[in-house]
């Protein structure tokens, strides 16, 4: 369970998170929508401790992420994150990209890491691309590789930060299909996205962020069907 309690975060004089409260249960899929600069992506990088927070706290399975005593390297093993820019490691083949962390972080043998990597890459439809270097692949393929790379650590939670925003339109579908598959397998996910149709389909709950505040959160039927917050109404009118 991820518990976000009254989290505040500023970059300089700009407060990007103004007291966020959100609890995500095991197996739940929560999508976060909202305009640029609403704080959605920052929240994700706070959850896995890549960004410090100024106030409040975030608990993952009872461990406080930003406590001084927390071993973040250990905690991050169970929180996978995939970014808008997939950040493939260009000097490693697709297989090696996925094997690296299981080997070096989990200390698995080469054989075991390879077995896991092949399984995850096959799962996201890249079973034929094992020895290819990432720069030879499309953005959609690289993004799916990044997802497999995160999954190879057997995370209990997956955070997706606008994973389709940097893709050519014709490549968005294959990545969203991968996310749908994960959701249907029961993975606990928080997805920051601009894909409204996707959010409507996969989410248990959808959260709308506006200027650092979670203005509304509800199951998709309610949030899209009968939005209460005036900013959300404007946002949905503009994106449809």
């Amino acid at each position, binding site marked *: 369970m991820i518990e976000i309690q009254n989290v505040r975060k500023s970059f300089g004089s700009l407060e990007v998170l103004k007291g966020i409260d959100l609890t995500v249960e095991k197996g739940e899929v929560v999508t976060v929508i909202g305009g640029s600069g609403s704080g959605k992506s920052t929240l994700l990088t706070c959850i896995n401790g*890549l960004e410090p927070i100024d106030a409040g706290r975030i608990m993952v399975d009872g461990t406080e992420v930003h406590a001084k005593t927390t071993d973040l*390297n250990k905690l991050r093993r169970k929180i996978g994150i995939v970014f808008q820019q997939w*950040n493939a*490691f260009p000097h*490693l083949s697709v297989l090696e990209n996925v094997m690296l962390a299981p080997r070096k972080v989990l200390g698995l043998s080469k054989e075991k890491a390879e077995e896991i990597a092949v399984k995850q890459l096959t799962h996201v439809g890249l079973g034929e691309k094992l020895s290819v270097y990432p720069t030879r692949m499309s953005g959609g393929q690289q993004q799916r590789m990044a997802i497999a*790379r995160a999954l190879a650590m057997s995370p209990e939670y997956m955070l997706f930060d606008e994973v389709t925003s940097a893709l050519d339109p014709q490549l968005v579908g294959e990545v969203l299909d991968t996310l749908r598959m994960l959701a249907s397998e029961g993975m606990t996910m928080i997805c920051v996205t601009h894909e409204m149709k996707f959010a409507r389909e996969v989410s248990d709950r959808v959260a709308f962020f506006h200027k650092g505040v979670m203005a509304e959160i509800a199951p998709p039927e309610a949030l899209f069907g009968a939005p209460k917050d005036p900013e959300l109404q404007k946002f949905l009118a503009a994106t449809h």
Partner: protein
Amino acid sequence: MFSYTFHWNQALKALPQMLDGALITLQVALLSMVIGLALALALTACRLSGNRVLGGIAATWVEIARNTPALFQIYMAHFGLGNFGIHLSPYTALLVGIAFNNAGYLAENFRGALKAIPDTQTRAGRSLGMTPVQAFRYIVLPQMLRVAFLPATNQMVWAILMTSLGVTVGMNSDLAGVTQELNARSFRTFEFFALAAVIYYVIAKAVTLAARALASRLFRY
């Protein structure tokens, strides 16, 4: 007006002697690169340390090495330090001077290579649970080496050519030194120096080609 008679035989007879000199040249250049690389790593670490004193020393080193003549740097190692009672042999002074120069250029090369690797690479590694050291070792460093490799081989070529400045501090065992002595005895300046130039060229070219072949094996992506 052109009545000079070439005496190539004399030069060719001295070829074995000159090739022995070329080995010394290569030795000094290689050693200066090894020392230069180690110093450049230390300078880069100092510049990244955030410590103002260490950073300042490293920055000054890089500035002097890159913006003053290599000849002066070697002179200083021999005659300049001699004024303070530190007497280095011509061989050592030449090695010190070139290593100083190499370190400055290579440190700048490393800094550029480090800048060329986006922070997001480290971030991706950290988010997979890697420690900062692991992320550097397995993700940043291998990519840095690729960026830094060819400029570093240029520096190696430059180091080989810089060794010829050793004659100005009395170095007489390297290729330039041997050639200069042969010239002083025979005054067949053109022949001896032309032959020496060919040897320098062959060494420099061989280093470049070997480095390129190595790079295509090392960096397949």
